[in-house]
């Protein structure tokens, strides 16, 4: 096994708002060199770094919008999100929970701060990821996996180092509950100060990490501060992270989907024709209907 080294440490780009409820830094695909092709199967990553939202009776969020051709994964670190979709699913993503929504052939959804959270106001911190689907799965029926924190795989690290939460993929012999179409590892390393964790993924996998809390050092030589993104080289397999203070780190590693990408707005397909079809299908109601 060889060491997988950090290729670059990327500072959070300027934030923008998605709707009025998500104050995000877009790492993938908007920040060089994190293009969709480079990061596949992770084709979009918006990070709402910790931000205080004042109390309101009108929950902030994003109104009805469609998706086709991929999965949206929402990881709630702080705050709660209520969501509804056109297949009739609705629920609340609680603090520490994950929603894994497979848009596939098409879905409409809306996401708002949960009512009570909005009323009280508070710190809000989320990651929203888009995970691409292979061509063969892009037009399968949509589905939806709510994953509570308790359902995640959990590996305790030795010496009171903390633990690893496995959302998808595998850490040592611990598997994550999310069902995926290709190999996708999404894991939270929740480390105490001085805690260390070793990860191992195939060299070809696109691998990265995002520091949600605290600060870490990777392989003993690359510091990655709070809210920074660490991109790994596609060489070597193993890396070690060590927490310089109590830290939370999102680890992403997935088998790249080597297919053409045609993306426009909320649709990610393989060709321009499929994109045009997506707009047409959305416009004539083939994604269903959802009240705003």
């Amino acid at each position, binding site marked *: 096994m060889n060491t997988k080294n950090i290729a670059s440490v990327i500072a959070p780009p300027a934030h923008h708002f998605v709707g009025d409820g998500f104050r995000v830094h877009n790492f993938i695909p908007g920040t060089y060199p994190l293009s969709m092709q480079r990061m596949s199967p992770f084709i979009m990553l918006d990070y709402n770094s910790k931000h205080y939202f004042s109390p309101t009776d009108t929950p902030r969020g994003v109104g009805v919008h469609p998706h086709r051709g991929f999965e949206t994964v929402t990881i709630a670190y702080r705050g709660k999100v209520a969501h509804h979709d056109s297949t009739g699913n609705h629920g609340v993503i609680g603090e520490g929970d994950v929603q894994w929504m497979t848009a596939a052939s098409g879905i409409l959804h809306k996401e708002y701060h949960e009512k009570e959270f909005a009323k009280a106001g508070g710190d809000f911190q989320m990651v929203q990821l888009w995970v691409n689907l292979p061509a063969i799965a892009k037009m*399968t029926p949509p589905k939806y996996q709510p994953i509570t924190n308790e359902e995640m795989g959990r590996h305790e690290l030795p010496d009171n180092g903390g633990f690893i939460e496995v959302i998808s993929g595998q850490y040592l012999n611990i598997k994550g509950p999310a069902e995926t179409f290709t190999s996708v590892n999404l894991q939270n390393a929740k480390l105490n100060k001085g805690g260390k964790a070793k990860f191992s993924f195939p060299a070809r996998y696109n691998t990265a990490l995002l520091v949600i809390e605290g600060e870490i050092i990777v392989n003993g030589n690359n510091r990655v501060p709070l809210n920074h993104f660490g991109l790994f080289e596609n060489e070597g397999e193993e890396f070690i992270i060590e927490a310089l203070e109590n830290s939370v780190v999102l680890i992403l590693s997935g088998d790249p989907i080597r297919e053409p990408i045609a993306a426009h707005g909320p649709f990610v397909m393989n060709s321009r024709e499929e994109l045009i079809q997506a707009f047409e299908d959305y416009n004539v109601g083939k994604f269903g209907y959802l009240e705003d």
Partner: protein
Amino acid sequence: MPTFDQHLQEKTGISPENAAILTEGLRTGLIKKGEFLSRQGDVCDYTFFVETGLLRAYTLDEQGKEHIIQFAPEGWLISDRSSAYFNEPSDFFIEAIEDSEVVFLDPAFNDRASAISTNYRHFNNLALQNHIRHLQKRINLLLGATAEARYLDFIKTYPDLTLRVPQWMIASFLGITPEGLSRVRKELARKNFKPGRS
């Protein structure tokens, strides 16, 4: 102005050399969302070509209600003809609804382009006929068609605008209420949504 250059060469069949001559010295501008290129009552003799972004032309009725006449996304032209060709005060506001890059075409642009290129003359004539055809169709739809027929025509003309502009603007363009538009979309979903298909 890459989009305008491409428009001239690919749509109107003007040679790269002539396109370079015609675009030399043309004014371009960056218009922020919410800013106006022209207001009701102004005499504005420019026609605007949208490089990037999205413009709309609308009018205000006596009750102060907006009625949208036209949207102009990338690659579209928009103007008030009373103003641009007849030197009369404009009936319309032309406003950016996204940050937009715009090429300002002066009234003599068509004459210069037609003088330099027969292809452009043919293109311009056909474009004018096509524009009138669309206006005829729009009058016909507004006078007698169902809200659904108007919506179906809208999405053919502007396939991606349903995701770029608020519902009330689409409703305003169609001459229906936002609730009426919601009913149309709900009814279409009822007919076309097949849950669980693969």
